[in-house]
């Protein structure tokens, strides 16, 4: 079966004004199958958002290959890019800046249809109304402006716009991070429902391990431009193979005092190195509690360990859960 | 830092070259000075001879190349009207221009910046409104009017200040006020915005949470941060000062390059005009470079990176 999204050895470097380029993404490979949701987690600056932007050509890949529904993104001309963007849509993190404040909600949702000549006039209005209804808003909201809506409602509008073209792939870039807790659940529920009802593939980028676990089938962990581990959800959360995955899981505070305080405290030492000057060998070795001399010298291979793909020299030494 | 300055100088050279080219062709398109040089009764033939002697009958591009070649040798040429090296004409005016620019900057900065800070700190107060009115008043009068009013009041009626000309500090005061008033509003406005901007930042709240008074926070922290955009304005304002100087210098008989520029344009004294423009863009560039240096002094992010 052809994956909806195939990312193979993706490299994105940003030139810096002074000094070496920023190696935002440095050789990332994964696929997303139809109807599948892949989570991409990592801390700020790890390159996870760059990956999602590169998939739709919002940033130019430096190397590697990305295919959306079989179409190569790298070197795509303007028309192909337009087609790719019909297949893959993005929901951004901040609903406050995702909508043009000077454009009505209806115009925003209808824009993809209008500029591609897919609908106009009454038909356009009807399709916008249907989309609004689908995300839990009312058709009459179409004539209002974004500032008249709350954050959660705005994110619904953004989702409606992303759905307008019936994409095969939905990229969610931290879609709930900017939302309040009580609203976050609404949006997560909506995303899960829509993903299922539209039979979309989904790449879910987030720093929140609990949220990712909630919506994803498989999860990839990124650190400093590299994938550390990629595994089916349950495998990742129950038997994390990479020390970074374990550290992340340990660091997430559980909203349950009893559980949280019983957790073993093994906070990671130090800070994330600069992606402009990543460490030699395994990029994580500077903070890794298990690092040995070998880790400083050789980049660990991306290899299978059961269902899990992992990049760690000492992945086998995982302590029993 | 050095690389940055080298880049700036490179840009500056391109800019200067563009300025020269633009002004060269504008000037030549506006006619040549032959007619202004001949006596009233000269015949067409006589005019043609003089034009030929002065070289204005050559194709424009030839004149342009000749001019550039001469310039590259560091020669600004001879004024057609004054029959003197342009460099010495300009040289004799620059000190006066500098004096006036400095004087008006003192007025603009000395009033504009404290007013701007006060307007930001006492935002919404009566003080802010009165300062705003004062500051804008300076910018809302044509200088030729305010200048003559001042001359009449302080020069003729009260006799406190010399009515015109250059005679030390007293003669500098009125032109500086007339000219400085124009930039004062820019400084006040920019300072106000910069200070307001900084006042809304967390580090001010943090400083106050540490027990600093608002005033101390402004002096110790806000001032330097707000200085960065203000310095940018200062560099730009130099250009505005030179433009405004044209009229102020005429009114106060102040022998700066603004007056010279207008006279030279009127006389189609090309080389003088071009030299003035060259000088002004040079000042502009130096001021912007200076601003860069000031940024580096103020801001460790610029100083320490690279």
């Amino acid at each position: 079966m052809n994956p909806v999204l195939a990312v193979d050895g993706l490299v994105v470097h940003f030139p810096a004004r002074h000094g070496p380029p920023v190696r935002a993404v440095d050789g990332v490979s994964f696929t997303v199958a139809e109807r599948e949701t892949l989570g991409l987690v990592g801390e700020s600056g790890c390159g996870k958002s760059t990956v999602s932007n590169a998939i739709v050509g919002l940033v130019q890949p430096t190397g590697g290959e990305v295919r959306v529904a079989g179409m190569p993104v790298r070197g795509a001309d303007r028309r192909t890019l337009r087609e790719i963007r019909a297949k893959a849509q993005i929901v951004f993190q901040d609903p406050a800046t995702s909508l043009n404040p000077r454009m009505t909600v209806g115009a925003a949702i209808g824009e993809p249809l209008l500029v591609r000549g897919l609908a106009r006039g009454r038909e356009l209005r009807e399709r916008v109304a249907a989309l609004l209804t689908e995300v839990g808003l009312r058709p009459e909201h179409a004539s209002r402006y974004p500032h008249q809506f709350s954050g959660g409602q705005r994110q619904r509008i953004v989702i409606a716009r992303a759905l307008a073209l019936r994409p095969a792939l939905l990229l969610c870039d931290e879609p709930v991070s900017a939302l309040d807790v009580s609203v976050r659940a609404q949006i997560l529920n909506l995303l899960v429902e829509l993903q299922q009802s539209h039979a979309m593939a989904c790449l879910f980028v987030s720093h929140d391990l609990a949220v990712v676990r909630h919506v994803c089938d498989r999860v990839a962990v990124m650190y400093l431009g590299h994938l550390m581990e990629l595994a089916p959800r349950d495998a990742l959360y129950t038997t994390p193979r990479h020390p970074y995955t374990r550290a992340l899981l340990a660091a997430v505070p559980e909203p349950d005092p009893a559980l949280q305080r019983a957790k073993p405290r093994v906070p990671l030492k130090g800070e994330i190195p600069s992606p402009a000057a990543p460490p030699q060998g395994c990029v994580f070795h500077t903070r890794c509690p298990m690092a040995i001399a070998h880790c400083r010298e050789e980049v660990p291979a991306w290899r299978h360990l059961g269902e899990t793909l992992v990049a760690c020299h000492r992945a086998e030494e995982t302590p029993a859960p | 830092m050095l690389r940055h300055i080298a880049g700036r100088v490179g840009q500056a050279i391109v800019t200067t070259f563009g300025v020269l080219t633009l002004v060269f062709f504008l000037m030549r398109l506006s006619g040549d000075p032959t007619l202004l040089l001949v006596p009233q009764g000269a015949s067409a033939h006589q005019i043609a001879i003089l034009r030929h002697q002065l070289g204005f009958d050559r194709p424009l591009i030839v004149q342009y190349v000749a001019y550039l070649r001469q310039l590259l040798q560091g020669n600004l040429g001879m004024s057609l009207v004054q029959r003197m090296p342009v460099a010495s004409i300009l040289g004799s005016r620059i000190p006066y221009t500098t004096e006036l620019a400095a004087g008006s900057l003192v007025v603009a900065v000395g009033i504009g910046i404290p007013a701007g800070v006060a307007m930001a700190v006492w935002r919404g107060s009566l003080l802010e409104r009165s300062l705003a009115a004062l500051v804008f008043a300076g910018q809302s009068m044509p200088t030729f009017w305010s200048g003559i009013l001042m001359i009449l009041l302080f020069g003729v009626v009260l006799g406190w200040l010399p009515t015109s000309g250059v005679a030390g500090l007293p003669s500098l005061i009125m032109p500086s006020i007339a000219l400085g008033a124009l930039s004062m509003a820019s400084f006040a406005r920019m300072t106000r915005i910069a200070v307001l901007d900084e006042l809304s930042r967390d580090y001010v709240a943090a400083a106050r949470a540490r027990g600093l008074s608002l005033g101390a926070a402004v002096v110790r922290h806000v001032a330097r941060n707000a200085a960065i955009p203000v310095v940018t304005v200062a560099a730009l304002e130099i250009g505005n000062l030179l433009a405004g100087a044209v009229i102020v210098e005429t009114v106060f008989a102040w022998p700066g390059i603004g007056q010279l520029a207008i006279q030279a344009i009127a006389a189609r004294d090309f080389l003088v005009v071009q030299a003035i423009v060259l000088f002004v863009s040079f000042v502009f560039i130096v001021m912007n470079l200076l601003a860069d240096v000031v940024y580096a002094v103020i801001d460790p992010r610029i100083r320490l990176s690279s």
Partner: protein
Amino acid sequence: MGIMKTAFLAAAITTIGIAGLIGAPAPALAAPKTKLTVDLPNDVATMDPQLQWDTDSYSVYRNIFDNLVTRNTSGKIVGQVASSWHYKSPTEIVFTIRNDIRFQDGSKLTPADVVYSVERITNPAFKSPQLSQFDEITSAAVTGPNEVTLTTKSPYPVLLAQLVKLSIVPKAYIEKVGNTQFNLHPIGSGPYKLADWQHGVRSVLTATPGYWGGKPPFEKVVFRVVPQDATRVADLRAGVADIVRQITPDDAKSLQSDHAVKVLAVPTERVGYLFVNAQWGPTKDVRVRRAIAMAIDRKGLISALLGGYAKPVNVVLTPASFGYPTGIKPWPYDPQKAAALIKAAGAEGARLPFLTSPAYPQNIIQAIQQMLDQVGLKVVIHQMDQASYLRDRQGTPQEAGSLAFGLWSCACQDADGTIWPLFHTGSIWSKYSNLAFDKAVDAARSTLDAKARMADYHTAFEILHRDVPGVGLYQADAIYGARDQLQWTPTPNEAFFIMDMKWK
């Protein structure tokens, strides 16, 4: 808010302090007047007298140099460097040169210097803008111990009047230092020498000790550059300047109430006239041109706008110049007849571009515009800068507009210097061609017989009167403002001889 307050206090004190510093005393008037301060509207363009002849340059350098001949206060041409002259033939004139004149560097002024001065200004390579005033001279030669002979192409009646503008420069000095240095550090034989010249600021002259013509009245003369009319007047009233050149008639009137100052005015050879394009546009029709001449109320203009500091003229020339015709009456002021003429010419509502520049009095131009509009024309003012104005005015008949205001002076006080360039066929100023007129002015140019010339000019002016290629409006006054103590009579040729002034 403690630090804040202190900072503001400091700023306030600084500002007030600067204001306080200015308690400088007003310039005191010294008892024996040794320094005269003059405000000129423009800077001296060149100190080299053979390079520029605009009134401001002339006002300064004429005091440094002596000229071959000059005009006395009554306007008569008299000798200066030349003590006498006579015509050897209609094209040869012999000057006797004084032998008691020394340049300011101590060297003697010799006939060789006179020859050099003529040859220098007539050498095309020197690029003097005055070349056209002297290019009738074909040679200059020392023909005796104190004798110089000038030869002209043809009999040239205006020669003496032109020679009034020929300053004698030192040959040896210029050959030694070169033209550029001479311009910066000129040496002449006049009553004053240049002590300091700050371009655009001031030129300072000091008296030459032992000047052959007498003792200069002031030790020091400072010429300042003050472009703004109102500022010059303020300078005068505040005592910053002792005499200011070029003030407006309105300012002159308002100065009359100030007893410390006075207005010095004299009718000059400068004629205010209206150019009327006879070769293009609605004014090609002579009826329109005549109507224009009849539509202008010259007396009204003079009394209302010029405050009487002008006299009406009948032709485009002033009585101060040779050749002014006495018998010609001007077109009468008759708007009804003018309107009728315009109607007859079918020129009602015709658009007449009126070229002008900021150098000319705006109120007169606007008043003329209204007068012409009232007789049925539509005058549109095109105000541009002086250089563009000259370009268009001297361009083709199409470019020159229908009307232009002018203030003409040839600095030679002769009709030849006025109507020849203004109206002779082919002259750059002329948008008019009449062979009979050309013949008359050409004839007047090539005879030395004053009576014959007068007759020729009479003919010429009669033709101009009929054809109206221009309308003479008024003889302009030169108006100076001076401190009351200054004794001086200004002259029609706007010479600014310090030697003629006195302080009482």
